[in-house]
């Protein structure tokens, strides 16, 4: 039997989309003008689906730091830190990230995906159990699979459901790891941390929070949901990415555990891949300094998010989350109408994400916006105006009324 035959269904689904004259998974940014502008299909387009929360990708100091690192350290590391050794920049980045996070230890990874693969598989092994939120990102699911641990899925954001499942597993040997996310990437909702910490006090597990979408965004220090909630002491491990608020590529895991550093010699996604490129590490370092020095970026993001949220609410759109968040998803009725509306938005000059099952919870079809601190009021208003004409007056409104 042909190996690729099993993907026939994917090909047919893709063909159905192309038949509508749309390729929502094949967008090319022909030119990047700014953190919030690109040329797509020859048109200047507002970017509202790139997770560029801090709008830092064109920051002059970050660019200068990246250029300097290229000059000083070259284009690549040509291997793993275990095999080739680290560059001074890697250890400096880990030191400064640990400081920013107020954690004793920080390990950086080449991508955010690998950070979750590494942390899940380094922390849990075949004798342990990982309890993961049903809406967890694929990198968490994949990291869990790599770990070989027993995997138990609990209902999204439901601490009582976790409690029930932990009770079912009582008396079993091995460690227990619970995995939550600060902001869930599809709907923009947050984990009810204090509820989960009550369950932690009752059952005693180790707790990891993935702050991929909340790092830089939430909390007085920009450290994420646990920072905002004042509950960092109850979180054992933090994971995050450099590809969103930090505007580079890479990821991190951090914690205070005395054995944390030894994870370096136990995490295959850290050991058996090339370390981050010098330019990416240097821009991450420059960006973290900016995030620490410029809290107004977070403030601006909050204002922009509230402006978009209020505008969508006034249009009567059915949003994924009732709380203001830099991730604002609009629920749509079905796949064909979502594709059509996404395409109409793009042709009118706004790029958002299209999110379809199984990448979404509860089989939702979503038009997902991510807000940036670099969006102007006029950008936000234009996005609202276009959602008004394309979504509210189109099929999206029917979903609300249904």
């Amino acid at each position, binding site marked *: 039997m042909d190996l690729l035959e099993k993907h026939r269904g994917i090909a047919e689904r893709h063909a159905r989309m192309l038949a509508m004259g749309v390729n929502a998974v094949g967008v090319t940014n022909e030119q990047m003008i700014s953190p919030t502008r690109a040329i797509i299909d020859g048109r200047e387009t507002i970017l509202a689906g790139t997770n560029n929360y801090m709008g830092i990708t064109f920051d002059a100091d970050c660019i200068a730091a990246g250029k300097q690192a290229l000059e000083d350290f070259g284009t690549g590391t040509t291997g793993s830190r275990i095999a080739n050794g680290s560059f001074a920049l890697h250890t400096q980045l880990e030191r400064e990230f640990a400081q920013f996070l107020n954690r004793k230890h920080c390990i950086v990874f080449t991508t955010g995906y690998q950070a979750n693969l590494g942390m899940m598989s380094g922390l849990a092994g075949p004798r342990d*159990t990982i309890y993961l939120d*049903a809406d967890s990102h694929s990198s968490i699911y994949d990291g*869990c699979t790599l770990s070989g641990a*027993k*995997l*138990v*899925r609990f*209902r999204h954001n439901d601490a009582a459901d976790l409690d029930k*499942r932990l009770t*079912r*597993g009582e008396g079993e040997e091995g460690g227990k790891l619970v995995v939550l996310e600060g902001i869930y990437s599809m709907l923009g909702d947050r984990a009810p941390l204090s509820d989960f910490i009550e369950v932690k006090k009752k059952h005693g597990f180790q707790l990891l929070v993935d702050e991929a979408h909340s790092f830089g965004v939430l909390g007085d220090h920009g450290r994420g949901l646990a920072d905002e909630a004042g509950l960092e002491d109850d979180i054992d491990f933090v994971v995050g990415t450099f590809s969103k608020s930090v505007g580079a590529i890479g990821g991190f895991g951090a914690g205070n555990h005395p054995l944390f550093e030894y994870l370096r010699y136990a995490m295959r996604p850290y050991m058996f891949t090339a370390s981050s490129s010098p330019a990416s590490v240097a821009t991450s370092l420059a960006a973290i300094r900016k995030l620490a020095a410029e809290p107004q970026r977070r403030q601006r993001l909050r204002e922009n998010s509230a402006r978009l949220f209020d505008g969508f609410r006034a249009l009567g759109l059915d949003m994924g989350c009732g709380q203001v968040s830099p991730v604002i998803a609009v629920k749509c009725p079905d796949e064909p109408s979502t594709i059509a509306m996404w395409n109409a938005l793009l042709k009118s000059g706004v790029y958002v994400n299209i999110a379809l*099952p*199984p990448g979404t*919870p509860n*089989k939702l079809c979503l038009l997902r916006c991510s807000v940036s601190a670099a969006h102007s009021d006029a950008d936000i208003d234009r996005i609202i105006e276009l959602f008004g004409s394309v979504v509210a007056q189109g099929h999206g409104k029917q979903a609300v009324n249904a």
Partner: protein
Amino acid sequence: MTDTVAQICTLLAPFNSNGTVLSASTDISSDLNIDSVTVMDFVMEVEDHFDIEIPLNILSETRTVADLARVVEARRKKE
């Protein structure tokens, strides 16, 4: 049809959007044309109905309703 198979078929009915006739030999994912996330959602309902734990790890070897019934029965005995 055993009692466990019958109960699983009842739990599976809300996920059966293409009108497949449900039986012990029904392949949950391919016959009902449901994706991996939906299969996990369904298994969560089975866990709660029988008050047992069905780790995700065993789902790759659990294709049919009969496979799942065997898992359920083994896990109920353990409790």
